[in-house]
């Protein structure tokens, strides 16, 4: 990391984020005892493995994954690969190994975005580096888990993901915690670089607890014919989550799709958006958000900006208020800067339509079965291009969360 980045970070150390509650970082500690490295992750305690499994990270059967990275609190405890052409390692190791590493460090996310990016730069606790070499495609997903177990810890990670030309990377990331009553904060910077004709699917399942604050900061750069598919599922209560990943299409025909499924249980405060800049001709995007509240608050944002000829973008935000005093605030935004672009959005917030419930009841479903069927349908987003295994994982995560909702 350069001196200028350090200086920028220090200057932004107290800069609040544009959106979301301003978290007092002084409440948290920056360091904890380093956990031991674990060459065989299946030997981790059963409770830890169960927590991770809830977020889609499988440790008992490594044959289901092309590679694995696990970080506990502020240190990596395991990284391994099972497929040639795929690299998985701690970011600290990648920095030592590759002389070009600096070309990808703070290039997709600005170090001085806010105090959370600055905090990651100043007190970084490693993170994962995942790369597919040119032309290589993951046969099975790579998995990564960022696990928070120490009370009051501020976990600060910086991840780099690179899909070289013509490669394909499928990644499943689970972020979870052992903490149930103690506070903690997860601050994660993720920078994605999708080269020409490459594809990345990134499925992130968050499973936090009611005292945790979460501030991910994500930037994605997509070159010609590159594809980035992001699927985000938040299934458990979280004290405060604010994220607004930003993707920039710099190559012709680049494609981005953000899907998010958010469930705000009582006490949860979510401010989640996606932002796409269509800066290259014929680039396109779709942002699809599904939000359900059973008492928590959700701000669902979406922003698409069209800055090049023949770009196309659609934003769909739908919210369902189940009961209680939950609030859903949908903010779809479109900005076009030249003629010939095609941007659109649709947003709807409401309760389950009684007419739909009664229609299903007329087919013999009980009221509860009808409502559950509608909620399940609402949550399941059709995701083109997702490998079947990840699709199953996503479905499982959503089915699990459906039980909390109903």
């Amino acid at each position: 990391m350069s001196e200028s980045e350090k200086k920028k970070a220090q200057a932004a150390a107290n800069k609040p984020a544009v959106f979301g509650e301003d978290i007092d970082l002084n409440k948290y500690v920056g360091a904890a005892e380093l956990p031991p490295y674990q060459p065989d992750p299946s030997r981790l305690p059963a409770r830890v493995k169960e927590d991770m499994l809830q977020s889609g990270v499988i440790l008992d059967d490594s044959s289901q994954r092309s590679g694995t990275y696990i970080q506990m609190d502020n240190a990596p405890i395991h990284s391994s690969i099972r497929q040639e052409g795929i690299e998985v390692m701690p970011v600290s190791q990648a920095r030592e190994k590759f002389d070009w590493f600096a070309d990808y460090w703070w290039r997709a996310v600005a170090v001085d975005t806010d105090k959370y990016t600055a905090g990651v730069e100043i007190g970084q606790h490693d993170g994962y580096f995942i790369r597919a070499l040119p032309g290589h495609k993951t046969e099975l997903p790579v998995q990564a888990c960022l696990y928070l177990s120490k009370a009051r810890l501020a976990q600060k990670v910086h991840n780099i993901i690179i899909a070289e030309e013509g490669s394909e990377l499928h990644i499943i990331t689970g972020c979870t915690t052992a903490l149930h009553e103690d506070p903690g904060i997860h601050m994660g910077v993720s920078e994605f670089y999708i080269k020409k004709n490459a594809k990345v699917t990134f499925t992130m399942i968050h499973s936090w607890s009611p005292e945790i604050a979460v501030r991910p900061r994500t930037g994605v750069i997509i070159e010609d014919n590159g594809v980035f598919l992001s699927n985000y599922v938040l299934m458990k209560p979280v004290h405060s989550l604010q994220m607004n990943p930003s993707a920039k299409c710099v190559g012709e025909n680049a494609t981005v799709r953000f899907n998010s499924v958010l469930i705000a249980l009582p006490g949860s405060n979510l401010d989640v958006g996606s932002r796409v800049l269509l800066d290259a001709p014929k680039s396109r995007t779709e942002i699809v958000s599904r939000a359900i509240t059973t008492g928590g608050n959700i701000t669902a944002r979406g922003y698409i900006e069209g800055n090049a000829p023949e770009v196309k973008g659609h934003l769909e935000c739908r919210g369902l208020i189940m009961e209680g005093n939950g609030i859903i605030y949908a903010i779809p935004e479109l900005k076009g800067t030249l003629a010939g672009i095609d941007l659109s959005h649709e947003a709807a917030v409401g309760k389950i339509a009684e007419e739909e419930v009664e229609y299903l009841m007329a087919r013999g479903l009980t009221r509860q079965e009808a409502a559950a069927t509608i909620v399940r349908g609402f949550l399941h987003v059709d995701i083109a291009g997702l490998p079947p295994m990840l699709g199953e994982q996503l479905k499982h995560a959503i089915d699990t969360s459906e039980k909390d909702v109903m």
Partner: protein
Amino acid sequence: MLEIQNLSVTVEDREILHGVDLTVGDGETHVLFGPNGAGKSTLLMTIMGFPKYRVTGGRIVLDGQDITSLPVDERARLGIGMSFQRPPVVRGVKTREMMEACLKEKGDGETVTNLAAKADLSDFLDRDINYGFSGGEIKRSELMQLMAQRPHLVLLDEPESGVDLVNIALIGQLMNDLLQKDCPMRQRRCMGLIITHTGHILNYVNARTGYVMIDGRIGCGADPHEILATVKEKGYEECVRCLLRNTPEGKVC
């Protein structure tokens, strides 16, 4: 047997049906005519049990059981099925899922794939229910779901509206299948009550009796083809005059 006895129904505090009597025997198909706003759909929705349609008098009896106060789903499980005139779109819920739920109740060996092929809807199973369906596709989908449900009493609200002439034959075929028209009358158990505006469907489905409903009252139990011919020739004004002669108050509401 379905027996509607002196049924009065209000919707949002306005009385729509005023003492309707109607009996449909096992295996019989009856047809209901009437101008817009006469209360035909209200009658079907009330038989199905939708809470918006509040029964203020009379009762509905199915096979000897008073079902007037049963909820919709229990009526469906007792064997009442309905094809809606304008069913809602249910986003995210696939047609296949709906079919599987309907079949689960019956488990008579029929498969979703077979039924979809019969209704020419094989490519629609993985689409959200009614989302982006044309008028004809909606009607076929409704009948396909009913074929999975296999109700004992079939309520069809304008099954031919919005259907082109090519598709109406298929609709008729599905209705005949549903109403067991290939069985001899003695063995047929399925009852049907059909609302039709145009009467086109009578070219494809045999119905025993027709009625005209005017302003929430039923009159003129007669051959449905004769009723249709009268309506075509003289309009519903003649039916109003007929009802005026036959209602005790001497007036139609």
